[in-house]
């Protein structure tokens, strides 16, 4: 009798839910997207005002309305500080009716923000962070990690190099969470392929002079020096490596290179270097068409987080439309059920743990002679299928 009641009850609830879905059920009669990014700091060129532009483009391309309700965008600067970012997002979701948060650059900020979004049952579309924590130890049913992560970078860049016989590695690592994670994941890949990590040095974030570390790398006897850092740290360390003749002695692998960083380097130094990216503007006609529109508005070619932010927003809006509501659980269900497919997301699907699995690209940085315009940054060498790039899902993160 009791179990019978239960079944009836759940059936009734299911009916109630589907009917509520059928009515356009949009909280406060609008869908509000919050873009949190670094507007003026070290990652501003990677996902700052450009990410806002990308989300605006997505909303305009979608038509500005979903389920007959207007789509609004708010944006804020997180200054790369977890406290600033999480405070802003808390304000958004608690008092301004924001339904979904995107942008999200510095992994430390994203970690703090996803705690707030998860507590409030709001979706976080992570467009620019690298850490793989958001789909592993800090996974949440409301996270969608879109563009890339440290695992994909390590698998894409490091694996083929070890396989080609470059067995001994030395790391110059940015001394914070992201650098440690990248070094850790890359070291695992190296060991599993039969290679060896002969040394590593942890350089404080924002180090201006890398010459000391470069000398240590030179003395290590490694085949490859892996740069487990990003942004200005990457640019400075590679510049110094070239200056001290390191690039002629051994290979250098930049594990995370965004297009604006590569643009900041002399092609004589960076040309030929391999790296992995989730998007390149010149990949095909579709990407070129979108990128041209982006450049017209933003002034610069898009980096991968910009394309990721557009793609994630578009998929979210399509899913809201299909779910008939902006209720996060219902939307997430549709997002995971339907495969995103646009100029960015190729052979893509949003996995149950929130990882967006899609094609990644092994590229090399163009040499002087190949740089017809200053925007010709990469040559695509190889497409890495998503399932090879990203790590398999952890069982405890399998959300329905």
């Amino acid at each position, binding site marked *: 009798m009791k179990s019978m009641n239960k079944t009836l009850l759940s059936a009734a609830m299911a009916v109630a839910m589907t009917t509520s879905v059928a009515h356009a059920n949009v909280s406060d009669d609008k869908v509000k997207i919050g873009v949190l990014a670094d*507007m*003026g700091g070290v990652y501003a060129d990677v996902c700052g*005002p450009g990410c806002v532009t990308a989300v605006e483009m997505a909303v305009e391309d979608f038509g500005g309305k979903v389920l007959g309700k207007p789509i609004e965008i*708010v*944006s*804020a*600067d997180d*200054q790369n*500080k*977890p*406290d*600033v970012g*999480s*405070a*802003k997002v*808390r*304000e958004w979701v*608690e*008092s301004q009716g924001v339904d979904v948060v995107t942008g999200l650059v*510095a*992994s*430390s900020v994203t*970690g*703090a923000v996803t*705690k707030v979004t998860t507590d409030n049952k709001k979706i976080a579309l992570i467009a620019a962070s690298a850490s793989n924590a958001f789909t592993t130890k800090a996974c949440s049913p409301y996270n969608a990690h879109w563009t890339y992560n440290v695992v994909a970078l390590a698998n894409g860049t490091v694996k083929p190099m070890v396989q080609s016989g470059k067995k001994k590695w030395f790391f110059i690592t940015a001394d*914070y*969470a*992201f650098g440690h994670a990248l070094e850790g994941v890359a070291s695992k890949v190296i060991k599993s392929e039969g290679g060896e990590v002969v040394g590593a040095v942890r350089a404080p*974030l924002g180090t201006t002079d890398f010459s000391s570390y470069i000398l240590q790398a030179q003395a290590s006897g490694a085949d490859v020096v892996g740069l487990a850092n990003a942004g200005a740290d990457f640019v400075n360390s590679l510049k110094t490596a070239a200056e001290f003749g390191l690039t002629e002695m051994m290979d250098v692998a930049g594990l995370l290179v965004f297009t604006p960083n590569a643009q900041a380097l002399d092609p004589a130094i960076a040309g030929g270097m391999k790296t992995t990216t989730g998007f390149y503007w010149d990949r095909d006609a579709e990407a070129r068409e979108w990128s041209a529109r982006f450049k017209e508005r933003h002034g610069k070619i898009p980096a991968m987080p910009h394309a990721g932010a557009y793609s994630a927003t578009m998929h979210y809006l399509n899913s809201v439309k299909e779910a008939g509501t902006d209720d996060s659980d219902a939307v997430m269900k549709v997002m995971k059920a339907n495969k995103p497919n646009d100029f960015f997301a190729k052979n893509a699907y949003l996995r149950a743990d929130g990882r967006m699995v899609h094609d990644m690209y092994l590229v090399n940085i163009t040499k002087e002679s190949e740089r017809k315009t200053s925007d010709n940054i990469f040559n695509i060498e190889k497409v890495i299928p998503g399932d090879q790039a990203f790590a398999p899902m952890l069982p405890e993160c399998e959300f329905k």
Partner: protein
Amino acid sequence: MKISKFNIALVGLGLVAPLVLYPVFLMKVLCFALFASAFNLLLGFVGLLSFGHAVFLGTGGYITGYLMMNTGITPELGILAGTAAAAILGAVYGKLAVKREGIYFAMVTLALAQLMFFVYLQAPFTGGEDGLQGVPRGELFGFIDLSDNMNMYYFVFAIFLAGFWLINRTVHSPFGQVLKAIRENEARATSLGYNVNDYKWVAFVISAALAGMAGSTKTLVFQLASLTDVHWHMSGEVVLMTLLGGMGTIFGPFVGAATIVSIQNFLSGGELGNYIHIIMGIIFIVCVLAFRSGIVGEIQKVIKRNFS
């Protein structure tokens, strides 16, 4: 009598404010107001510019955050522990710093703060760049749920009033009179037989403890303790708040903190985010050039000129 009516009105305003404004924003204002008031005790009333005061804010925050996450103690005890930790650190740092004056005092406090910054960056319990995330707010005295913003607000407001009262009390006590005497003429205070360094030290410890209390409270409000709170930029920010509001005045730091937090809040949303450094810098310059007494100081001047 008139003053106390003014105070009652202010408290009343504080009590109804969260019904109109977003409570978390108000709590942020209160935390920074307490921090700036604590800082002002040193700068405004003893004449010591500490350029490393963020270390106490951060210490309070990290200790409270760590205890709340790992021991399950109640929030009032967490805040007490954070405050105590900041006071102990203040006692040690103060002992070293008060022997120095002027720019050397500023530099010693900066250097000592940088050493702790390094500790918090490297120590395993602080979470490095990530900070301590997801600190539970807990239940006050074990039964008032602070995850409710309104409950949290009134708790923060009570802490702020307690801290503010303590500062006010200190300033107007005989002890406070000696501090002011030291600020005006240190040599004379010494010749009157006061052990100047001891007085400075006690003021330093009180200031550090209250800064720590502000940090502990802030950590509970935002459920996060991070490196931002120990960075030297934060030490600069509190100088700005105090200067803008009016150093050496009781309400100045409050006004300064409220203004800066509001500006940051306003600028952080949207297009103007780009200009945050520029606007802060301009405020600094304008304050130094034109309003060295700060907002409250200038208002007091006007009142004095016109009404007495």
